[in-house]
């Protein structure tokens, strides 16, 4: 059902930009109509790949005490959630492709098809990095209930709100002033959706693209270390009470 809800959101964003680009020759925020609508449609696929995640259930698993069932099994807890995450993305991707085709026939937007192999490869790399960054973000945030069990639901909600706006899920981040963009670029969020789509659209030069991929790797490393540290500390403080 959340796929249907996702489609409503795409509808809102599509018509918003469709109105702004009613004059097809118009260029706003450095986008022409074709590239902006490609950004909106690209969001369906990239969101399905990056933002559809099962790791947001980690907090609930810990606060309910269900984590103990998995800790007793001879499997890695982190890899278990990563596997669930990836399989969820597979299902969502199938739906996303179907939705894109459906919406394409309903809305008939102009599409920009990227033909540069190097950019497509970089786009794929940035997507893989985004998937891993988002998983680590959600997993690390999901560990907070080790200390504050009742916060599981609230902290996921807060995370979703921040990701929704700072990742470019609602609008391309380059409509914001440059100073605000520079601050956001220091966070991992723009590398989830905005940056991969910028690569696909060919809106970033080679140097900025390489720097962006480098920053994504950096965030991946930082979040990996942070996750490990929080995970081991959480395990030490976990008492499995009520189980």
């Amino acid at each position, binding site marked *: 059902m959340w796929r249907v809800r996702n489609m409503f959101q795409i509808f809102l964003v599509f018509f918003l930009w469709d109105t702004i680009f009613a004059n097809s020759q118009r260029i706003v925020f450095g986008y022409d109509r074709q590239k902006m609508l490609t950004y909106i449609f690209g969001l369906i696929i990239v969101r399905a790949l990056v933002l559809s995640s099962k790791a947001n259930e980690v907090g609930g698993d810990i606060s309910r005490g269900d984590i103990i069932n998995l800790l007793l099994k001879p499997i890695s807890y982190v890899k278990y959630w990563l596997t669930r995450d990836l399989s969820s993305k597979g299902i969502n991707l199938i739906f996303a492709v179907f939705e894109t085709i459906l919406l394409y026939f309903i809305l008939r937007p102009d599409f920009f098809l990227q033909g540069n192999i190097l950019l497509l490869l970089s786009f794929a790399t940035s997507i893989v990095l985004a998937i891993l960054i988002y998983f680590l973000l959600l997993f690390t945030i999901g560990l907070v209930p080790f200390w504050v069990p*009742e916060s599981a639901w609230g902290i996921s909600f807060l995370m979703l709100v921040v990701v929704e706006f700072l990742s470019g899920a609602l609008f391309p981040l380059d409509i914001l002033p440059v100073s605000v963009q520079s601050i956001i670029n220091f966070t991992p969020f723009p590398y989830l959706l905005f940056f991969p789509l910028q690569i696909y659209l060919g809106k970033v030069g080679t140097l900025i693209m390489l720097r962006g991929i480098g920053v994504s790797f950096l965030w991946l490393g930082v979040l990996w270390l942070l996750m490990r540290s929080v995970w081991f500390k959480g395990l030490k403080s976990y008492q499995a009470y009520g189980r």
Partner: protein
Amino acid sequence: MEDRKEVQNLKLRIKYFGFSLVIGTFRAVSKFSFKFENIKELVSRCYYYFKIWLLMSKNSFIVMLEQKKLFFLFLLGKVLRFGFFILFLVFLVKGTENLAGYNSNQVIFFFLTFNLVDIVSQFLFREVYRFRPLLVSGDFDLVMTKPMNALFRVLMGGADVIDFITIPPLLIVLAIVGGGLNPNFFQIFSYLIFIINSLMIAAAFHILVLAFGIITLEIDHVIWIYRDLTNLGRFPVDIYRQPIQGILTYLIPVGIMMTFPVKAMLGLISSWGILFSFSLGILMVILSIKLWNRALKSYTSASS
């Protein structure tokens, strides 16, 4: 040429639909028999239910405030979401100069009005989100045995404290931004009346969800689809192409709920539009109550 003919046809059909709706509403209202013999009894019943609502709201607030950390996280999330969206609108309209012919102040006022209707209806009707557990556990039987209207209990029995806290600052911002649009007294009055109409439609939607819940046990998804549909009213419905704009205005009717109050304040609604909107609001409430009564008859208390 053919396109113009199609639009003319569509407009005629909408007018015919609207005319039938107004006549239907008058018929329905005239058939609606009031149970109360006199005004005094009506006032005393309202006071009785108001006291119950205060008591239930107090209980609901206490439950939420017990979980202070969760309460703070949700409040922060809602404030952040609101702030981010306002920022987005400011920068968007700054860069595009206008949106569907509306300037930046007007677009922000549309968004604030959407929030007002959305937050107030969530504050009042939050209990609808908790109806399913009552149904599947059979605890709804206990609601029906109490000396109060079961619909009132499941519709308004759990006011949301987070929404309650966000309403006063929202009203202040609305007054500031709305004041900048220089409305006259009549325009402000129209705006307020349209907001009441929007809340009536929101109430009708929530009652429909409850009735649908009794019949099918499906509530969670239906209520979220309602929320997503109303979210399409964050911007004036003028941004949508026809026939989606017509559907969103007259059939669903997100436009009447979210866009018409602001249009009324800007003096952009015809007398026909006013008549149509209020007829639809009244008719939806009457129909939703009728459907609820019918749904109650099909309730089997199976799980109790």
